[in-house]
């Protein structure tokens, strides 16, 4: 029942009137994030028995902080995938926002302006992505792949390969500090998730995003500004990647050119494991958090059990493939 309770409010695409136990079970499976929720529970139960350190406050707090960066960026990625697109450039944008904020801060710019600078730089990248994709009908995969290279190059050019230190302490506090016993990045993740959940389910904008992903032609004929909203998805994705980037930089205390390197893969994986469908129009913010949590817990569990890092990589890869298979099975009757 707990999973049902958690999951119920999030997918507008979910028929909430199960009639019997069997249909309850099948609608549980039909839930976009069911795979992630069930997997998190199974893996956690296993780890609780396999490793005495797993179910401790200290460990769980660390796990939550380590996946919060991915989860935040994945919330933006989720919006893009919802519109049948993909944003490969997320990892490099994480780096850009962190580097810009660190550079501004170390140059003595006030904290708020430094943060704003980082976020604006990220959103400019998103705007460029969105404009190219929506206005010219370019393939999102290729545009953002190109952008990944451009922005990563920019990251290196800005830092010239040297780590940037001298970041203001209050910025570092965002990534390193705790509030009421929980790490700050975890709080920020929870707050952003609540806002995004509200935006996706309670606003015209969220509704229209789901409609575009489900059937862009029907949405267009209904008077929805399909191109504008599609473009905005990439801006959101970049904004969330930017937030993740600033937090990650703050957590590390220094900005390096390769911050967030390769993160796009985990970000996309978290969104898809969390039930966001590549076929568009299906998915939920809460599911995305579960997806990121699964990746974080699996990584943590393997570290606790002393699994070789090569094997960790293999297991993570397998988890992603299984998630995609579940996505296909779940959406099969839909297509």
């Amino acid at each position, binding site marked *: 029942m707990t999973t049902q309770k958690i999951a119920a409010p999030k997918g507008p695409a979910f*028929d909430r009137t199960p009639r019997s136990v069997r249909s309850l079970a099948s609608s549980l499976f039909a839930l976009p994030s069911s795979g992630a929720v069930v997997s998190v529970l199974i893996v956690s139960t296993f780890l609780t028995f396999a490793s005495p350190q797993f179910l401790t406050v200290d460990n769980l707090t660390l796990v939550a902080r380590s996946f919060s960066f991915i989860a935040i960026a994945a919330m933006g990625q989720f919006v893009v995938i919802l519109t049948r697109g993909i944003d490969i450039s997320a990892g490099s944008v994480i780096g850009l926002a962190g580097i810009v904020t660190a550079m501004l801060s170390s140059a003595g710019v006030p904290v708020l302006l430094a943060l704003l600078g980082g976020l604006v730089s990220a959103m400019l990248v998103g705007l460029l992505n969105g404009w190219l994709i929506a206005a010219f009908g370019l393939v999102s995969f290729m545009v953002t792949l190109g952008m990944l290279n451009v922005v990563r190059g920019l990251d290196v050019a800005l830092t010239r390969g040297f780590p940037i230190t001298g970041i203001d302490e209050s910025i570092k506090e965002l990534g390193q500090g705790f509030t009421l016993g929980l790490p700050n990045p975890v709080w920020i993740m929870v707050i952003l998730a609540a806002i995004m959940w509200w935006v996706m389910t309670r606003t*015209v904008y969220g*509704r*229209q995003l*789901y*409609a575009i992903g489900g*059937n862009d032609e*029907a949405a267009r*004929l209904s008077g929805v500004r399909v191109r504008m909203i599609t473009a905005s998805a990439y801006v959101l994705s970049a904004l969330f990647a930017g937030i993740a980037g600033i937090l990650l930089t703050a957590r590390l205390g220094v900005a390096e050119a390769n911050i967030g390197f390769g993160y796009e893969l985990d970000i996309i994986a978290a969104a898809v494991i969390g039930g966001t469908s590549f076929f568009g129009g299906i998915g939920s913010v809460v599911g995305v958090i579960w997806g990121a949590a699964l990746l974080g817990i699996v990584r943590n569990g393997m570290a606790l059990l002393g699994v070789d890092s090569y094997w960790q990589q293999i297991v993570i890869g397998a988890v992603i493939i299984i998630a995609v298979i579940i996505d296909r099975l779940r959406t099969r009757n839909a297509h």
Partner: protein
Amino acid sequence: MPPTDEVARPELVRASGMSISFGGVPVVDDVDLVLHPGEVVALLGENGAGKSSLMKMLAGVYVADQGTIVVDDKEVAVDSVRRARECGITMIHQELNLVDNLSIAENIALGREPRRGAKALGVVDRRESLRQAAVALREIGSHLDPKYQVGKLSLAQQQIVEIAKALAQDNVRVLLMDEPTSSLPEEQASDLVDLILRLRDTGLAIVVTTHRIPEAFSVADRIVVMRDGSKVAEYDAHDSSVTRDSIVNAMIGRELTALFPDKRTKIGPPVLEVTGMSGGFVEDVDLTVREGEIFGLGGLVGAGRTEFARLLFGCDKRTSGRVVIDGAEKRIRGPRDAVKAGMGFIPEDRKREGLVLGLDIEENYSLPNLPEWSRFGVLSLRSLSRRAQSAIASYRVRSRSSRQLVRTLSGGNQQKVVLAKWMATPKRLLILDEPTRGVDVGARQEIYRAIDEIAASGVGVLLISSDMEELIGLSDRIGVMADGRLQGVLNHEQATQARIFELASKLEEVL
């Protein structure tokens, strides 16, 4: 029941008692069909009469629920396309099955490419492939270059390639063609008719479906009329006592009045005035729709009616044309402007353009109305759900709840959701493109009633329909299009089947 004067000819195929149903709805019900070598049979009927399904059973695309197929006096179980081919039966589908980016020769050889050298290597013998294609094309009198890319050919030329491909297989004796001329302009259609006649003279048995009656007379030796899944009449096409009217009556055949609401009496001033609308192959259309009026738009499939509606609603770019609504000229650059100007559009393809199947009734219902129903972009789920429930009740949508996915509704109920979503906020003009396609008769009546109520409330309705009885039964005036132009406007008294057919098939009459 073979025609009496044909008894002496040898039978090639005898299909009897053919039946098939989809989702419990019988589509073809107990139909017999006999084919003779060297004869063309035209299958006539309205959309949904079961013509294509009957053909697909013969071609092994569908497996019949009931019925036997006898080829050369031997009963065969035609349960796959492969099996049908072995019996010499091959079908050319309405949507051509050609690979655009391959050459003519590659298409003709597709799936049975001639090999060269060691078989296991699978090296294509390109010279042999080209030679075979050239032979196949020559046999049907075509001078196309086999090396030419199929995607660059005209539709008529592609049709010819498809025929060459079908005939290039060994031992084809029965050629089934589904609507071969429906997408072709007049001269090319007549070339195709000539080709069909030549093929017939080589001894093939040919079946052609069409809904153009003059064409049936020019191509067929025998005309079989289907309606609602049954064979209702069979004529000798060379018998001069068979007239177009008798065929039209057989095709329609139902009591027209019962289904439709009475005509509304209050017709007001013009709501929509269109002048000089052109774009795509639509040319220079002028028309006026009045308040409380249902203006029907008739014509053959491909006459440009849907294209006109899309231009009007701003879905496609127009090259010229003025749109005036309630006396004020409106600039319509896209569907958004059209919605703002008070128009609603119910597109032909409900599933592709009308609904988001993966969303529920409430979400689809509110989609075009979200800006009005929100405050600063924020929605109240409770009020949305209340609105949806009252719409479900007033449009009689059969559903479990407002959260049911529209994917799981029947066609008729899906259409009611589309109607409801457009009529949820006041409209001046509603464009309906084939509103009852794929909807069963019971639900149809409810949709007609809803359309009538919408018109009676003072909205102008532009109704596109290929269903003659629907067009005549609902419309106050009917404009008939052919070849991208409006051929004429008939008022209710003038609007008879024959008159509409005449205007719609104006081109064929020249033949």
